[in-house]
């Protein structure tokens, strides 16, 4: 099964089972386990979704159970950028630069309607970027305005499943694709 073919979560596991070298998959499993168990997010919040992201790290929902509690203020130390909030035209170059400053492997979660499509500001607004995928590639979309903390947790767990299916080849392709953009 090709990496490009799967679009839903169910086929992620199929993709893993669809055969590869025993030694390579074992090494991949170890690497992926390490990566998915310590996803460090960047402290990046532009608006309302940022408060729900803080709430996800707070006692009731507790991000830390999944190894995500270490919020990094510097993009160079972060693995995943959760785009929490609206991105406007003035912010777009800054976001691109933040993404470029992150070291590989890096992942992007678009949190909330604004980051996905512009949300409530899709119509009539002259300054809002209509979806962050125009600027940087997105791995997981978390819908909601703002999404509940449970929704963000679910999105982050989906990202972990995505990381679980990676292998050396797909990682190389991904890096090359990011570099060419």
């Amino acid at each position, binding site marked *: 099964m090709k990496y490009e073919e799967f679009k839903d979560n169910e086929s992620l596991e199929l993709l893993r089972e669809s055969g590869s070298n025993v030694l390579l998959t074992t090494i991949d499993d170890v690497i992926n386990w390490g990566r998915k168990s310590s996803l460090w997010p*960047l*402290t*990046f*919040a*532009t*608006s*309302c979704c*940022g*408060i*729900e992201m*803080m*709430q996800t790290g*707070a*006692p*009731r929902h507790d991000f830390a159970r999944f190894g995500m509690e270490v*919020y990094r*203020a510097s*993009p160079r130390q972060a693995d995943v950028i959760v785009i929490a*909030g*609206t991105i*406007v035209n*003035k*912010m777009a170059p*800054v976001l691109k630069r*933040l993404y470029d400053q992150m070291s590989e492997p890096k992942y992007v979660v678009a949190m909330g309607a604004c980051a996905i499509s512009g949300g*409530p*500001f899709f119509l*009539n*607004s*002259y*300054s*809002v970027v209509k979806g962050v995928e125009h600027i940087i590639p997105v791995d997981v979309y978390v819908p909601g*305005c*703002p999404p*509940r903390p449970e929704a963000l947790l679910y999105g982050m767990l989906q990202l972990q499943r995505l990381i679980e299916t990676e292998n050396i080849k797909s990682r190389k392709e991904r890096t090359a694709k990011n570099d060419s953009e």
Partner: protein
Amino acid sequence: MEEIIKEVVIGEQEEYVINMGPQHPSTHGVLRLVVSLKGEIVKNVEPHIGYIHRGIEKMCESITYTQIIHLTDRMDYLSAMMNNEAVCLAVEKALEVEIPDRIKIIRTIMSELSRIQSHQLFWASFGMDLGGQTCFFYGLRDREKVLDIFEETTGGRMIVSYNCPGGLMYDIHPNFRKRVKEFIKYFRGVLWEYDAILTGNVIFRERSIGIGTLSLEDAISYGITGPSGRASGFSCDIRKHEPYSAYDRVQFNEVLYNEGDTYHRYLARIEEMRESMSIIDQLIDNIPEGPYFVKMKPVIKLPEGEYFQRVETARGELDVFIISDGNKNPYRVKFRSPNFVNLGVLNHITKDFKIADLIAIAGSLDFVIPDIDR
């Protein structure tokens, strides 16, 4: 010997500029501050805004009055209830609609709950800015309980869109009274922890007392409202001076201090939580029965003219100014947001303090960046 040391210190002689933000954990969002330093002393702070400018005022001109409610939620998302209320009151004033007591009282209770959760978040993030990670956990633990009450009645956690012109979107949940009473009882019991962790903490007091002092004259001339203004002795509480909704039938104190430093701006918010709880206490048993909305026309058209409404949000005075030309869309909407005006004083009160104090002072003014840019 001293002369040699003076030469070695970089930047002691001339000012140098550092850039703080837009992505910086202590600016609470995407505020960018260009800070001129002499050594470690702040000489000039120049805020650059617009990194989250979404054009809400312009968008309002092409949508109806009911739809504007949903945009005001996203301005100051921690005072969403009060922002909704401001537009609703302006529209109701223009149409001369008489609002029943039930709606007024529910709006007041919701606003005060909103104020409590906003100050809880302030406490959590202010403590974290000054290096106290525990505050973050304690503050947000209690905030969840208010959000639960909101969620049960309105369906939303913080973007609620609960008020609409002519009343409320939904009736209150049957459990509402019980849950609010439980919360007030719980929160009265744990508020001493807030004092024990921060208010009496020696490190916190050293870092906040006498820092960023704002005099009464400056507070008035800069137009600083809300708890920040009241910490300087500026009596600016709209709830007292121009009561709206049910504020004219409750007894509460306007929290006023004369010192105007970072510590008292913090203290004003803690005391306001106590006042808010006493307001809710007075109202929660007196919600009369009745409808939760007044029947309005499906398409609301304001008569030609100018309409103005002031409300007190958690951060200060929010003014809504609507010019109508008789259509279903407003001709012009202007929001006077408290955060934008409060930001103006930052340069004035941080001058000649250390750069670490800039974080404390900016934290104590409690900015919500989307409200600055709109």
